[in-house]
C-alpha cells in the first residue's frame, strides 16, 4: 500500500541514495513548476500519502516555500541548505558545521574505500548526529574479495559504536543498529509503499529510475498512477528476499533492474553487502552484551553460514 510520495523539486536535487543525481543541471533551470508542485501535493492529500521533498543545493524561490508549507512533510536537504531540514545529506566528509548536524538525521553517500579512509570523520559524526545513514555508492562493483575488508571495517565501526554507547549516547547507524530492532523486512519500498514525482509531472518508482531514463515513468499527474506488475515489487513476490533475514537491506529494485534485469531479484553484490552488515550487527549485539549495554527492543540474530541466500535456492523449491 502506498504511504509516501517523494517529490524531486529539481533535477539537481541532492541524491540521498545509491543513484547519482546530475551535477551539471544549471541552477533553477529544471525546477519543478509551481503548478506541478501544487498538483503533486493535492495528489498526496487525496491518496493519504506522506510527502518527502528532495531539495537542490540552492535556495528555492519564496513562493515555493509557501506551497510546501501547506502540507505536513519531510525535507531532505543537502548540507548547503540545512535550515529546517529533517534529513541532511552530507555532500562531503568535512564541510558540515557542528551546529548543522547536531542531533540531526544525516545521510552520507560514500564508496567502501572512502568510508574506510574516513573512519575518524564517521566517529566525529556519530558523536554529533542522532542518526547516520551510510549509503554505499559502489555496491554494484563489490567483489567477493572485498568481503573481508568490508567485514573488518564494519566491525571497527561496531567497536566504535560500542564505545559511544558506553558513554550513554545511543546514536543510530543504519548499517549496524537497524537490524538489531527489526523482526521483519524493512526495505526501501519503491513502487510498493513509495512513489516519486519528478519535476516533469511524471511518476517514477524512485528517483533513480527518473535520473536513469525519464521514459521509465509509471504514470503522471495528468493520467494517474499506473504501476505495471506492482506485485513484483512486493516482498512476497521476491523469491530470494522472502527467504532472507537481512531485514535492514534496502532491497534496491533499481539496482536489481540494472544488475539482474528483474526488479524482484537482487544481485549477488547486494545480498553479500547486506549480509555482511547483518552479521556485523550480530557482532555489535555481542559486543554490547559484553559491555552490559542495553538497547530497547533488540532481538537475537542467529548465526548463518552464507553471505548470499541465493546459494540456498534449490532448498526452497
Amino acid at each position, binding site marked *: 500500500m502506498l504511504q509516501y510520495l517523494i517529490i524531486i523539486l529539481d533535477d539537481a536535487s541532492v541524491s540521498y541514495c545509491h543513484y547519482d543525481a546530475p551535477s551539471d543541471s544549471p541552477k533553477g533551470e529544471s525546477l519543478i513548476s509551481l503548478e506541478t508542485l501544487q498538483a503533486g501535493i493535492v495528489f498526496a492529500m487525496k491518496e493519504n500519502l506522506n510527502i518527502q521533498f528532495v531539495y537542490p543545493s540552492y535556495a528555492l524561490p519564496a513562493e515555493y516555500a509557501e506551497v510546501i508549507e501547506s502540507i505536513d512533510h519531510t525535507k531532505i536537504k543537502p548540507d548547503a541548505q540545512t535550515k529546517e531540514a529533517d534529513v541532511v545529506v552530507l555532500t562531503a566528509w568535512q564541510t558540515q558545521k557542528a551546529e548543522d548536524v547536531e542531533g540531526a538525521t544525516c545521510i552520507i553517500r560514500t564508496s567502501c574505500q572512502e568510508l574506510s579512509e574516513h573512519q575518524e570523520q564517521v566517529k566525529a559524526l556519530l558523536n554529533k548526529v542522532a542518526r547516520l545513514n551510510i549509503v554505499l555508492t559502489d555496491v554494484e562493483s563489490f567483489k567477493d574479495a572485498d568481503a573481508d575488508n568490508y567485514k573488518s571495517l564494519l566491525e571497527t565501526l561496531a567497536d566504535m559504536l560500542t564505545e559511544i554507547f558506553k558513554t550513554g549516547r545511543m546514536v543510530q547507524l543504519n548499517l549496524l543498529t537497524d537490524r538489531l530492532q527489526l523482526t521483519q523486512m524493512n526495505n526501501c519500498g519503491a513502487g510498493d509503499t513509495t512513489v516519486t514525482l519528478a519535476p516533469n509531472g511524471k511518476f517514477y518508482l524512485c528517483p533513480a529510475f527518473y535520473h536513469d531514463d525519464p521514459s521509465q515513468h509509471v504514470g503522471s499527474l495528468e493520467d494517474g498512477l499506473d504501476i505495471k506488475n506492482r506485485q513484483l515489487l512486493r516482498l512476497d513476490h521476491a*523469491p530470494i528476499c522472502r527467504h532472507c533475514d537481512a531485514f535492514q537491506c534496502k532491497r534496491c529494485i533499481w539496482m536489481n533492474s540494472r544488475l539482474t*534485469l528483474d*526488479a524482484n531479484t537482487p544481485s549477488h553484490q547486494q545480498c553479500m553487502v547486506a549480509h555482511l552488515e547483518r552479521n556485523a550487527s550480530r557482532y555489535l549485539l555481542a559486543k554490547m552484551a559484553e559491555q552490559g549495554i542495553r538497547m530497547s527492543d533488540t532481538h537475537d540474530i542467529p548465526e548463518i553460514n552464507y553471505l548470499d541466500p541465493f546459494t540456498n535456492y534449490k532448498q526452497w523449491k
Partner: protein
Amino acid sequence: MDTLDIQDHSNSWQEGRAKSITFIVTKDCQLACKYCYLVGKNTKERMSWEVAKKAIDYILDKEEEFKEESVIWDFIGGEPFLEIDLVDRICDYLKTEMYRRNHHWFNSYRFSFSTNGINYHTEKVQKFIEKNRNHLSIGITIDGTQRKHDLNRIWKTPEMEQGIAPKPEDERGSYNDVVKNIPLWLEQFPGASTKVTISSADLPYIKESVLHLYSLGIKEVNINCVFEDVWKEDDDMLFEQQLMELADAIIDRKLYEDHTCSFFMEHIGKPMNRERDNQNWCGAGMMLAVDAAGMFYPCTRFAQYSLRNKQAWIIGDIHNGIDKNKLRPFLTLDRTTQSTEECITCEVASGCAWCQGENFDAADTHTVYQRSTAICRMHKARVRANNYYWNKLFRKLELENQREEFERQKANVREPKC
C-alpha cells in the same frame, strides 16, 4: 488376452540430468513459416568458426560451473543444416576437446538438431549423420497433411528479405520437399518424433494431420499450440472438436497401442497444490544459448531474433563470460510467483504450459515473472477433450478386460517440456 504396448513420452535423453547448450549457427532459413516466433531471421548473422571455438573453449574451461552429468549440444537456426560445414567442424572439435581434457561430458553427450528436413538427404548431412550416428538426435518438423503443412510452412522468397509478403497464389509450400526425406529419416532414427505447431489457421486440420503423420510411420507426435496471443473467438471450441474427433480415431483404430500424441496426457487438467506443485515449467536459465555475435542467452527465445517487443536478455558473451546475476531471476522462478491467482487456483491447472521467452516478450515490464495467459482457453479445451479421450479409452479397455494390463504397462507418462 492381447498384450498392450503403450507408448509414452518419457524417452527424452538424460531428461533433467543434461545441460542443453544451443549454438544458433545461423538466423537464416529456406522457409518463412507463418507462425514462426523467430521474427528477426536474416541471412547475415551466421556463426563464424572463431566464435564457435571460443564459445566451446569457454564452456569446457569452466567445467566446475557446468556440473550436469551430461550435455546436449543443440544446433538451431534458422535452419542449422544450412551451416553443415560449420556444424561438422564444431562437433569434431567438441569430441576432440572433451576427450583431450578428459571432460566429464566425454561419452555422455548428444548432438541434437531441429531441422525443417529439406537438406536432410544431401551428401554432407548424410556424411555427418553417418559419422555421429550414436550420439545424434534429429527432429524433422513436418506439420501433418500437405494442406496443413503448406498452410504455414512456405518457402521464403527474395522479396521477403525486403519485408514484402508474397501474394497467396505465389506462396509455395514445402511439404513435398520434406516428406520425401521422411522414410530415410525413420530408417536412420526409427523412434524419431516430430514436433507439430498449431496456430489459429491450423485448427481444422489437427485430426487429419496427426493421423497422416502416423501413416507416414511417425509414432510419436509432439504437438502444441503456439503461446502467442493469436487465438480468435471460438477457436477453443474448434480445437476441442478436432481433438475429440482425433480421440475417437485413435481409440477406434487402436492406435494408442503403439502411437502417442502429446495432446492426450492422462494426468493433465487437475488442480495444483500451491506449495507442493510449485516448480517452474520452462528450463530457461538452466540452458545456455550462444549466437553468431558470441552472446550468451538463457535460451534461444531470449535472443533478439526471437523477440517482438523486448531487447534481448543477454547473460554474457564469449569474451567476458557469463554474468551470473542475470541468471538469478531464472533460477529462482517458481510457478506461483509468476502466476495470477486465477492460474494458481485454476481447477484444471496441471499441464498448462508456458514459454518463459514468450512470457518475457509479452510482459508489461522487463520481467520473466509475468505469466502470459493467452493460451488459457485453448488449454481448457484441450483438458475437456483429454478427459473425453481417457474416459472413452478406459471404458473400452474395461469392456475388453484390458484395463489392468494397461495400468501395468503404461510408463510414467510425462509432458514433454522445452
